[in-house]
């Protein structure tokens, strides 16, 4: 540190660093705002406009602060002030689009938030018709995410148990590494994989007419591929948090390992595991690309995930957003479906986070 190299005159002068009065930053901010307004908004330098004015104000403020603080307080303090300003500026800058997304979602989503939307499908509703709903899409999303969960949960938790309780050596390390890597697989690749594997290869053998067919189940498989690493990873972390004395106590009582895991370790880690599963479900429910490739989509209600095309909320949004017609019927339906989907996802996420908070393991 530079302070150490300077010879000190007296302790008092060393401690009494010169500081800017509290009002100076505020005054500088006000000054910068007025200056920017005059230069950019009134003077129309570089085209003007309020956005440029705001950016200009921040820049002028930074330069001014750097100068004033640099002269009075020294270079280090000046840097500190600039860094603090930049950090808060980044924060504000990022909030703007995010707030806009949420506000738009609520504002636009309200237009079709009626009973029809939740108990009607799009059968016999064309781009030129008002009304219609997302009942078939909601069914599809719930069934697909549900089946994916049923597949993933036993597999994911068992995999996590292997990694934590049994796995040793290279196999366990490889699994751990690839679970992490697999979390990064793009969803569309998972969709292509299920397309190549299930839709094109397996489904012709299952259907009566030997044709390749799309289905909700294929979508569930694709979602399961995406959910598996997330569930395994979060379950693994939760299992690791279970205190070893719990296991040791059980072993001491002569309980076999498998029973210890199932009766002692799992129940202790359960809230955390459920949290992880819910977060994974929330993520899967919002996926569009893989479902688009393997579920096909339809306008009618299809309750069976195993036969025929099925809709999901996310492809419903994609499809309706593409329908441009008078009065924005399609786009309005898309926004309301978007609001429904976000509500579903957020409800799951919030429930998961609350559950995590109540969990005994931290």
């Amino acid at each position, binding site marked *: *540190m530079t302070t150490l190299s300077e010879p000190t005159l007296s302790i008092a002068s060393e401690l009494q660093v010169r500081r800017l009065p509290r009002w100076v930053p505020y005054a500088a901010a006000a000054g910068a705002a007025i200056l920017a307004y005059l230069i950019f908004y009134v003077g129309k330098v570089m085209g003007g406009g309020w956005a440029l004015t705001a950016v200009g104000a921040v820049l002028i403020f930074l330069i001014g602060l750097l100068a004033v603080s640099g002269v009075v307080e020294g270079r280090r303090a000046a840097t500190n002030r600039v860094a603090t300003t930049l*950090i808060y500026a980044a924060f504000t800058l990022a909030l703007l689009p995010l707030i806009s997304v949420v506000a*738009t979602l609520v504002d636009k989503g309200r237009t079709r938030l009626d009973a029809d939307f939740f108990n009607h499908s799009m059968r016999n509703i064309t781009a030129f018709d008002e009304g219609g709903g997302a009942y078939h899409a909601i069914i599809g999303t719930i069934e697909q995410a549900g089946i994916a969960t049923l597949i993933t949960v036993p597999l994911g938790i068992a995999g996590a148990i292997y990694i934590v*309780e049994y796995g040793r050596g*290279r196999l366990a390390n490889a699994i751990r590494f690839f679970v992490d890597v697999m979390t990064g697989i793009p969803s569309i*690749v998972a969709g292509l994989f299920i397309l190549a594997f299930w839709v094109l290869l397996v489904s012709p053998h299952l259907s009566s007419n030997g044709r390749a067919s799309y289905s909700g189940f294929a979508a569930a498989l694709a979602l399961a591929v995406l959910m598996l690493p997330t569930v395994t990873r979060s379950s693994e972390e939760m299992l690791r948090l279970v205190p070893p004395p719990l296991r040791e106590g059980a072993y001491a009582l002569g309980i076999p390992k498998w029973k210890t895991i199932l009766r002692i370790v799992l129940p202790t880690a359960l809230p955390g595991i459920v949290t992880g599963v819910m977060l994974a479900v929330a993520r899967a429910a919002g996926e569009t690309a893989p479902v688009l490739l393997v579920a096909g989509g339809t306008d009618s209600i299809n309750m069976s995930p195993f036969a025929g095309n099925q809709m999901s909320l996310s492809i419903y949004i994609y499809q309706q957003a593409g329908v441009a017609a008078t009065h924005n019927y399609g786009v309005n339906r898309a926004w309301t479906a*978007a609001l429904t989907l976000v509500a579903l996802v957020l409800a799951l996420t919030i429930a998961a986070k609350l559950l995590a908070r109540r969990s005994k393991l931290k």
Partner: protein
Amino acid sequence: MSEPSFGSAEVAPATSAEPHSREPSQVPAPRPGPVDDDVSVTAEPNAPRHRSEGQGPGDRGPDDRPTLLGGGGGLPRRRRFGPEPLFRGFTTASGTAVLVIIAAIATFLIVKAIPALRADKANFLTYYQWFPDPSQADQPSKFGIGALAFGTVLTSALALLVAVPVALGIALCLSHYAPRRLATGLGFVIDLLAAVPSIIFGLWGREYLVQPVRGLSTWLHKYFAWIPLFGGDGPYGKSILLGSLVLAIMVLPIVTSLSREVFRQTPAMNEEAALALGATKWEMVRTAVIPYGRPGLIASVMLGLGRALGETIALALVLGSTFNVTFDILNSGGNTIAANIANHFGDAQDIGRGALIASGLVLFAITLVVNMIARGIVYRRREFVGSAT
């Protein structure tokens, strides 16, 4: 790889111990392979060993029972098809499923891609256009990943260029600057935003960001046309700039949420030491927080990059989907591998579908490499064990 050695370690003692369970000298031979049950004993010294008794380390006499290592004298004998091996087998199989799936993804994509690549009359890696299914008999199938891969990398790089500094700013703000109560609430909100499906961002971008970005493009071109990126003089529509911005807004909560976790894990001692030496707050952040979290930060950025590279629907909605290789980010255009799959999947025929799968394979390879690098960094520095998902 090491799975068979597990199996042998599993079965060998059971079979050999079966007839004379009371005679431990039956199992003196060291089992092959690095994976040995003894490893688990040293790792968990207090864990009981559910083996037939007498499998203590080393050769011991019949009466020299390893009492310290958990009795098990009264335990039922180990069976080959008992619940324990079954359960263990089930969990092992489940764990291995991950490896199987990754291998299967690669295999199936390659198998489906090969016929299309054979039919391709252009160089798949360098050709710019995408005509896998010609509608006239005399035209060959020609398609290549050149423009798509370029677009994928360019959009993602620009998105991260915009998002990462801002995300780190927010993360620092939440972890070290904002008042605790506010930071907790806002952190929760950021986590929620990270969960918002990407199609929502795409829809929002298409409906509300196109016009502002057209204005921005005009402005950028007017005053900064000397920068090659901003050389495009119109028409401005759905451009790489728009795509990158939407992507940046989408990745922002993800990177923020991960790096906030990283920053929060800085030991208080490191921070206090810096402050005690007279550092200003920023110097404390620069000398204590950021160096400590660097591997975690790199990992979170890489994960953001992985997410950006694979983003499909949001980009299908906001890119101009033309096949050009240009650094001009203002003019309408831009395309990515994933967005192209979403756009062309509907009307692809046999070769077209194979071509899309081949492009997906390239995307898979790119993201696999990016993720493996990210994980490699994290694994080398085990301090960071955050909830990177």
